């Protein structure tokens, strides 16, 4: 059964149909990429899934449960984590604190206990710390542990954001342009992280991406969007040679 399903999901901003009756399934353990020209509605789909936007119509289903109307702050608790296109870390906190915020949806201590920092809170904090250290070790971020995010280079911040999402211990990970702003080498590294996340951690990934080499490297299936509509879906190779996709990217008429 599919881990995640979108059924005829649409959203309209005024007269613009940003996403128009899009349906797709994501299977357990795959990397599913969404490609398309600028303004095709890729990030809007992510914002719909993380419930920053509300769908005008259609259904979103995760593990057999509909969550089309679930409030945004509950999404992490369901096991859906995301990163952002233009890095949304907490710049005035250390890397460690950023990753610990990723553990927020797992915290079960009461407010009164926190006021006194009771032993239960201390125990929970140490447990969170261990989980965070696992992620730090996984992504090789040890030497930046106590650095302020504002002082880290862009490429490292991208990895930190990935790490923060992993601290949620998600079942489904949404990556919004993981390679944007990275150089060729860093992009390759990002590709290896994504493969490791899929193979070693068994996390299902939905990725929005422009870099076709990265898409080819990691994706099991690809969906192409244009003007909010699905124009092609299938293996990376099939989608890239699909005439509609070529037309969307290069413009002009294609001899069919």
């Amino acid at each position: 059964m599919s881990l995640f399903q979108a059924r005829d999901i649409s959203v309209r901003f005024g007269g613009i149909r940003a996403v128009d009756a899009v349906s797709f399934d994501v299977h357990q353990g795959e990397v599913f990429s969404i490609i398309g020209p600028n303004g095709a509605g890729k990030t809007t789909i992510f914002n719909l899934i993380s419930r920053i936007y509300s769908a005008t119509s259609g259904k979103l289903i995760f593990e057999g449960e509909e969550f089309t109307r679930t409030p945004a702050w509950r999404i992490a608790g369901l096991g859906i984590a995301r990163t952002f296109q233009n890095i949304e870390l907490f710049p005035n906190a250390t890397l460690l604190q950023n990753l610990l915020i990723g553990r927020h949806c797992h915290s079960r201590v009461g407010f009164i206990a926190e006021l006194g920092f009771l032993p239960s809170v201390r125990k929970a904090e140490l447990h969170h710390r261990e989980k965070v250290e696992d992620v730090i070790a996984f992504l090789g971020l040890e030497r930046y542990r106590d650095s302020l995010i504002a002082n880290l280079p862009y490429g490292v911040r991208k990895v930190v954001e990935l790490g923060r999402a992993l601290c949620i211990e998600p079942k489904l990970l949404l990556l919004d342009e993981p390679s944007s702003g990275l150089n060729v080498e860093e992009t390759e590294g990002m590709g290896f992280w994504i493969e490791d996340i899929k193979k070693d951690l068994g996390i299902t990934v939905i990725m929005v991406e422009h870099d076709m080499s990265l898409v080819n490297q990691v994706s099991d299936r690809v969906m192409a969007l244009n003007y909010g509509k699905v124009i092609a879906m299938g293996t990376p190779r099939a989608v890239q040679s699909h005439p509609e996709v070529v037309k969307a990217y290069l413009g002009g008429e294609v001899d069919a």
Partner: protein
Amino acid sequence: MRHLFRTRYQQDIALWRHNGDRFWYALLALIVLLAPAVLGEFYIGELGAVFIFAIAGVGLMLLVGYTGLISLGHAAFLGIGAYTNAVLLAQGVPFLVTLPIAGLFTALCGAAIGRPTLRMSGLYLAIATLAFGSIVGTVFQKWTAVTGGFDGFAVPTPYVFGMSIEGATGIYYVSLAVLVLVLLVAANLLRSPTGRALVAIRDSEVSAQSMGIHLARYKTLAFAISAGMTGLAGALFAHYVRYLAPDAFDVLLSVQFVTIVFVGGLGSLRGAVLGAMFVRLLPQFIAVVRDSLPFGIGRLPGLEPSLFGLTLVLVILFQPGGLNGMWLKTKQWFQAFPFKRQASFRRQKSYARSERLR
């Protein structure tokens, strides 16, 4: 220079980082405990006022410095705490009960203002809280049956375990105890999930939300905690001024609280205390030098508020880290002596992402 070699995760969540911290804070505790034996009544009274303002400063720091929400209505919370405490005392309720009730009731009022302003930020929130402040001020004036209106009323003498704490020394010690408690609670919160959630909201609401942080709950909570601490300060303030009248809780007082937070240094509990010292001691300093200033500047009306305003502007422009930032830089300079990094002392142009930028 001290390099910490950390071998356990416990070390990262400890209140004291190393024995040096323990030593200096123990020394500070000893000094403030013994101060009444050395200093005169007037100075102890003023120090007590510094503590009271520091309590409110810590409360406002949690809201402005850590959650990134502004409030220009904290004088109202101070007033609510003061009146709650004084009115209950007049009814014969013991001080050890009225003090926490003043805090809790003010926290409720804070939640009540936090809830409807959830979607506001920046200037709009400033205006909303300003309006709240003036509404509460009007209530103090008009609700004569309880507050005595413009005439005000004398605050009854508080008793702790049968001892009257009428004099400056009594208020000094009670304020000190409450300040230590408030600082401890704030530090505990900041190293718990709640504190991290507040910082997350300050730095990026959208990603805080996608990390599973319930924005409405935590913003309301931040307002409640902040107001509650200010309410405690208010209860003590009532005993410091001894006579409650509504004009004590005007907008200028709210601006003084904001000055505490900004001049002290956003995002630092130490800054809240340093800021409170600045705000309470500047008027005393002006009083001392008033007569020796040239051109009759000392006799100009409004000298004090304009100096507050000037300092606020200068600090925001040239020293965004506030007094706490200056302290950290000075400490670093001595630790690294004779080496120094030019960059540390260059004019800082990156700011904590908070209300002033939106």
